[in-house]
């Protein structure tokens, strides 16, 4: 007998694949939870690439599904506003703290510029040895020959340690970071069914209190290169401590941005190499493919499925007129599978030409600023995995996150096989 999840999946999927095109709604989180969203996006790219849905759980919205159209919208920040939010829905409790990813110029620019040095390439090269040491410690502590959850023991642990470093967060308390990240993304604004918004608010308030203490401490010390110290010392942002909601919003942005995304690419890479065993062989034969594979993992996973904008004026796109005030959702998850730009886009190919040409980081002024941190973590991790293990075997299908925003894994059961 099929389980409930299967029934839901089939119903949602059938409606979106076989129902009338004008009713197609790719925002249903169940599609992502069951990893069938790609089929819906394939239909949209083919039949209605700039797609308007007049009625959905998130109100009327446009879906932008082709690579080039996404670049057009993403790089046109004067027409497509990021305010007040970059996810498809608005939370039912209206609790929407401002953060720079969800701001337009000029405020966006000054806040981003204040935070960015923490993740600039030259700063990162200082961190490489430390990250490698941590990756080694994590990998050396893993059980060989017995099943465990890769997400918990590796993906979450590694990204948490990295994030703690970027915030210079008390290391013993570091597990608060992924907890707050999950709290921040567990919202009805991204399709999570039954999200407890009161509980969410309570824990986000705790997060704010914790970081406010750190802020005061850092403000009274000489400037360093962690996010909090940079923000507390920059002329443009040093008064953020007096705007608690703005501080909280930016904390949520930096925590989620540095956590969920890389976490799920770390898990995704393991899963894809198991789905495409020929690629795993290629990798073992030629570890120099790692940097290219890292970009391919980030494309294939697309850890953030969408970003939303609001049109500030009428705009023609793909023969349709997006009206001033309309909500526009760029589906990165779709753009990254657009066959017109990416050859055999549904295949995971670690030696793909121009693998960096993907939309996972977004484009334009809101482009991911942590992209180099993400790439570095993945690169070091795979360098060290190949040195240690003959095979990293996925032993059953993963359990995935229910969200139309974070595309990720809750549980990825694996068994490690030692080198002969």
């Amino acid at each position: 007998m099929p389980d409930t999840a299967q029934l839901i999946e089939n119903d949602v999927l059938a409606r979106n694949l076989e129902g009338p095109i004008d009713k197609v709604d790719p925002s249903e989180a169940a599609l992502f939870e069951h990893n069938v969203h790609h089929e819906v996006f394939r239909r949209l790219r083919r039949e209605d690439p700039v797609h308007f849905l007049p009625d959905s759980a998130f109100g009327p919205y446009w879906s932008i599904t082709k690579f080039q159209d996404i670049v057009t919208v993403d790089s046109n920040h004067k027409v497509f506003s990021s305010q007040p939010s970059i996810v498809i829905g608005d939370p039912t409790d209206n609790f929407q703290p401002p953060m720079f990813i969800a701001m337009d110029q000029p405020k966006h620019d000054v806040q981003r510029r204040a935070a960015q040095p923490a993740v600039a390439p030259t700063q990162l090269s200082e961190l490489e040895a430390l990250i490698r040491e941590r990756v080694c410690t994590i990998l050396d502590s893993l059980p060989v020959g017995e099943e465990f959850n890769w997400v918990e023991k590796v993906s979450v642990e590694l990204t948490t340690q990295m994030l703690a470093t970027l915030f210079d967060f008390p290391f013993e308390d570091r597990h608060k970071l992924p907890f707050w990240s999950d709290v921040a993304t567990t919202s009805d604004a991204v399709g999570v069914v039954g999200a407890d918004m009161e509980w969410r608010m309570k824990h986000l308030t705790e997060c704010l209190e914790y970081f406010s203490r750190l802020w005061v401490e850092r403000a009274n010390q000489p400037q360093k290169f962690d996010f909090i110290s940079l923000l507390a010392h920059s002329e443009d942002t040093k008064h953020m401590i007096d705007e608690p909601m703005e501080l909280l919003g930016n904390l949520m942005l930096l925590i989620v941005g540095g956590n969920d995304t890389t976490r799920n690419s770390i898990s995704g890479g393991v899963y894809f190499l198991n789905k495409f065993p020929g690629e795993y062989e290629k990798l073992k034969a030629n570890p120099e493919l790692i940097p290219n594979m890292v970009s391919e993992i980030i494309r294939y996973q697309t850890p953030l499925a969408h970003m939303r904008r609001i049109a500030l004026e009428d705009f023609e796109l793909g023969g349709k007129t997006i009206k001033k005030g309309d909500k526009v959702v760029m589906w990165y998850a779709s753009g990254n599978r657009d066959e017109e730009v990416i050859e055999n886009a549904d295949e995971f190919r670690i030696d793909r030409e121009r693998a960096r040409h993907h939309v996972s980081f977004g484009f334009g002024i809101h482009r991911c600023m942590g992209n180099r941190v993400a790439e570095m973590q993945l690169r070091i991790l795979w360098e060290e995995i190949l040195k240690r293990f003959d095979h990293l075997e996925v032993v059953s299908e993963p359990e995935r996150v229910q969200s139309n925003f974070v595309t990720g894994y809750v549980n990825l059961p694996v068994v490690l096989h030692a080198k002969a």
Partner: protein
Amino acid sequence: MPTITYIDHDGTERPIEAKNGETVMETAIKNSVPGIDADCGGACACATCHVYVDEAFMDKVGQPEDMEQSMLDFAENVQANSRLSCQIQISDDLDGLRVTTPESQH
């Protein structure tokens, strides 16, 4: 055909015979010149084809437009002669142009 010389962070020079009408970024990618990532493919939508233009060519190359300036604002180690190479179109006027790539693209 104009010659464009790419100089990497370590000082290695790579003179390339370029085609008029193509951009400094495209020419680099086609000739596998290292140091330029060009993630967005030439849409002026990232800043990963950042170069420093030789002072002697600054007038001929011209100033960045709004969008390019917005993207340059978030690149690392930006100088007065910083440009995105996808926005510099090659013509006979630029024969002999020298551009230096930064240590890393962000």
